[in-house]
């Protein structure tokens, strides 16, 4: 199990990787969403705010009404934010569950795919 602090550290790295990737920023330029992440095993929750493809903030806890809700284990979240996990594979295996439109599911996966194409 990953702690809340570990996930926040992973999120900090994820934010930098996302925001510095020009290709990703171009692709997601119209994508503004509020995301909620729920770690089922630890009950930890996180909120991430994406404005025009830029991750402007993230924090522990659930704030606002989300456009996307992602539910999984704390370990999966930690690995995903560090770029060590293929979210699509976990999604297809039912280990990551997403409440969102199909377009948003692809866009969420696109982040990992663009930043870490080998994953």
């Amino acid at each position, binding site marked *: 199990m990953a702690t809340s602090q570990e996930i926040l550290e992973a999120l900090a790295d994820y934010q930098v990787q996302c925001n510095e990737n020009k290709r990703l920023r171009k*692709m997601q330029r119209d994508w503004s969403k509020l995301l909620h992440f729920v770690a089922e095993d630890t009950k930890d929750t996180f909120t991430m705010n994406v404005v025009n493809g830029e991750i402007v903030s993230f924090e522990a806890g659930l704030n606002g009404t989300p456009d996307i809700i992602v539910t999984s284990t704390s370990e999966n979240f930690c690995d995903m934010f560090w*770029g*060590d996990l293929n979210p*699509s594979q976990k*999604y297809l295996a*039912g280990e990551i569950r997403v409440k969102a439109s199909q377009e948003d599911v692809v866009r969420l996966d696109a982040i990992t795919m663009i930043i870490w194409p080998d*994953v």
Partner: protein
Amino acid sequence: MTELKKVIKLRTVISTSAGMAIATSCYLAGIQLATILVGELAWISILLAGFLCLLSSMCFSELTSLYPTAAGIKLYIQNAFNEKVSIIIGMFYVILGISMVGAESYLLASVLSGTFQIFTPLYDKLLWMLFFIVFVVLINIRGVYITGLVQDIMTYSMIAFMIGVSIYTFATHDINFSLAAQSAKFTLGNIIQAAGVGVFLFVGYEWVTPLAEETTDYRLIGKGMIWAIGILTVTYSLFIVAMYTGLTPAQLASGTPIPHIVFGTNLFGVAGTITFICMSILASVTSFNSGLLNTSRFSYAMGRDNVLPRFFSKLHPSYATPWVSILFLGGLAIVISLTTLFTGKYLFIILMAAALECFIYVVAAVCVIKLRKKYPQKERAFKIPGGYTVPIIVIVVFTGLMIGIFTDVSRDYLGRELFKNYWVAVVMAGFFLCMVLYTLMVVPIFKKKAQEKEKTRVKRRPGKS
């Protein structure tokens, strides 16, 4: 747990499910169904087909409540059987499903070329077919999505229009049910056989299940499918009988691929032709667009999962759409459309789609039984009442209908043989075998390659390298 900002309501679940099923090819399938039985009594087979689809929808409802995700079909087959079976069936379903575009684009091209002549009929059909497919491919790559409200307006308008036209036809034409009931064609065997073709009228209703991720309550998907099938059953029952009544025996005998346009012209002249053409375009474009949207996302996911070559997961740099998957499936649709154009065997594809649906319904019912045995305690927002009764009925009936389709002979209105339907089974078996060989021989290569790459990759997470 907080809820999403934007959620899909029951009204949109119904319109999406019904909208996927309504297509130009449904009118032709309806006339084919009416030809097998007696036109005036076609509604009996439609009611039967609708009822059977209703039972199958209960299986999808239970599976969706168990796996409320867009990856549902792969997930529940994988959990009921194993990953290989899920890949084989999933890809078989998707690739053969896209082949319906062949019949759909051919029929739409027939509708347009019959009205607006530019070159010769053949070139006109070719032109319209390519235009139609390329248009849908482009809007998919551009990432144009039909919103729930637009879907609602389009589907409910089409349904209201079909019901309105039917009522008008019944008010202006004589229908003699008792005379029709005395026909030698009105037999139990023909009712069941026609119901087998009638399944085609509902093809695609289950493609609404990926919307589970956008609803507040997963049970809405099940409710929506049931409502959609009910509405479609009533609408088709009325419209097919009305269309049959509104066509002259000579028009029926001509074997026209565009009976609804001829029917519209008979009723309202040029205004009827134009209105029915518009309805046809709307029905075809929406169902093909949704079909391509779903299947391309499936191919994208398969690419990401190392089941298909990695390039299937390439995303468009500006629109974030899986453009390689869309182009591949669009190309496949063009190949099938051209084959349909040059062979003229659009009925073949309609029967193939009906048989494919029967097959998928059987798979879904088997999954329900296997998953109940495997995970009896797993939470289900919806569980089919009556134990295994409904899934077993679905398995028996749809296997029977599928065999019925394969063992029959396709004939036109005058009873002339078009082709023997076992060829449909041969083509489907060929496709299935290709999927089996691909899964057993090619997929392991991609998986192994991905595993080797994974081993050499340095983990970024601190303490995990």
